[in-house]
């Protein structure tokens, strides 16, 4: 049976004739449309003093995992000239062979949401790496969050020129969600551990089905969407880290609500598209292109980290 190709898997026969004048303007890079598309427009530059690119992506593999990350500015922010307020970082931890990740979504009502998200990811990764380097038995997640909240407050103190800004003032400036964690190789198979503040979430995708790893705001029993988010620097009353095994034929996905809202319970068109396209890790640019799909009413920033288990030295199909 002929294997079905993914949209980024082209053969030599598909190579475009670069001299042809009638090549479509967007070539293969027009947004993937899911259902009704968002109308076409030219994105406006982000109204910020420091450089904030529209899209970032990352693509690498270590001995035990293949990693993809993409963070794309939402259509609404492109339309209005607002910077991407999502942020993500992924890193390899050589001593343990683990993949560390942090994903944040700056709360749009915050005045410098994009900076809040950036500080949160950077601080959480620093705190996580520091603890993992110390090779303790378990990560102290409360301290990871506490360190991150302190970093936000410290930066707010500089920005506001106040010695000790009130939590409300830090929220007003930098409020952000966060999921930080790692996936590590283990004797019984990879294990993922993470902590959540706000509605950024995580899923295990296996055999076309999505299983929520963290608290998910898409509770089918609720008649209307709950919008209650308590972001950093507010710390949860009780830190509830989650540790879960990652089957060898599954992928761990960590994403902001720009992806999660469109995914819903995973049974819709977006869920099917990602289940099909993420059976194997796509090239990073294809991962970003996939995440930038066009679907009416879903116009928020989107961030997604994918971690696929792999055997040492295994070549992953691309």
């Amino acid at each position: 049976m002929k294997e079905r190709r993914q949209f980024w898997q082209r053969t030599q026969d598909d190579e475009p004739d670069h001299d042809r004048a009638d090549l479509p303007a967007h070539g293969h890079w027009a947004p993937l449309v899911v259902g009704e598309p968002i109308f076409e427009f030219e994105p406006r530059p982000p109204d910020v003093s420091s450089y904030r690119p529209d899209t970032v992506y990352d693509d690498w593999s270590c001995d035990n995992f293949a990693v993809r990350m993409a963070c794309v500015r939402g259509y609404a922010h492109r339309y209005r000239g607002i910077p991407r307020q999502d942020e993500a970082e992924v890193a390899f931890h050589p001593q343990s062979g683990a993949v560390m990740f942090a994903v944040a979504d700056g709360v749009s009502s915050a005045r410098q949401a994009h900076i809040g998200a950036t500080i949160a990811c950077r601080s959480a990764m620093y705190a996580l790496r520091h603890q993992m380097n110390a090779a303790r038995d378990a990560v102290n997640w409360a301290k990871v969050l506490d360190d991150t909240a302190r970093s936000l407050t410290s930066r707010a103190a500089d920005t506001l020129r106040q010695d000790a800004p009130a939590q409300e003032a830090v929220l007003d400036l930098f409020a952000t969600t966060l999921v930080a964690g790692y996936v590590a190789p283990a004797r019984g198979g990879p294990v993922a551990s993470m902590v959540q503040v706000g509605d950024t979430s995580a899923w295990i995708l296996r055999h076309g089905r999505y299983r929520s790893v963290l608290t998910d705001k898409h509770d089918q029993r609720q008649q209307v969407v709950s919008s209650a988010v308590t972001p950093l620097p507010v710390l949860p009353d009780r830190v509830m880290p989650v540790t879960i095994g990652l089957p060898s034929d599954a992928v761990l996905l960590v994403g902001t609500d720009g992806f999660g809202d469109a995914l819903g319970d995973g049974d819709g068109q977006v869920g099917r598209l990602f289940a099909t396209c993420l059976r194997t890790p796509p090239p990073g640019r294809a991962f970003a292109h996939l995440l930038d799909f066009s679907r009416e009413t879903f116009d928020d920033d989107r961030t997604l980290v994918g971690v696929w288990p792999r055997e040492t030295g295994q070549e992953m199909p691309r």
Partner: protein
Amino acid sequence: MQNHESELNNGLSALIETLRAEPMIAAKVRLSVLGFSDKVAVRLALADLRGLEMVPRLQIRGSTNYRAAFDDLLRRIPGDVFALKRDGYSVHRPAVFFLSDGQPDDARWRNPHRRLTDRAATAVAPNVIAFGIGAVKAQTILEVATQTHFAFVSIPGADIGMAIARFFVALTASVIQSGQSLNSSSPELVVEHPEGFRLAIDVV
């Protein structure tokens, strides 16, 4: 409000045109417009304004039967939410912008209003933002609104036509700003304080 039909219709036209100029927000908003006097007249039902071919005409009629309005909303809103969810939409808590120039005909509106706004009784209970102009009492508007900062009354002696126009300006700004916040981590109902109105709580 008898002589102010044109202000009502101009305000509604401006609201619809403004939303049409914001297609990304309009895609997320469904608008119903109900007139109420002795009974309810549906001028627009769960409309996607991007495809609206004709702006409905509002008509001034007599009496102000609040009960008819809240009885209708009590049936209409759960049905509308069900229809939207069936079509695959996620639905945020509905918002009712209530405008009246007169006191209720009688007190029988309180029961349907209570059932409508009680989230234990009605899971999709709306936020009600109430605006009073002319003869309506601030206390009544305060009772209609679901939060004290959602209750506004026009300044005594204010021109009714001007008050209607300002109501629509605030309504339009509220819908646009609330629509913008829908793509954020913290969607919220934004209520614009209309010029020429005071919070009812400051009057009572």
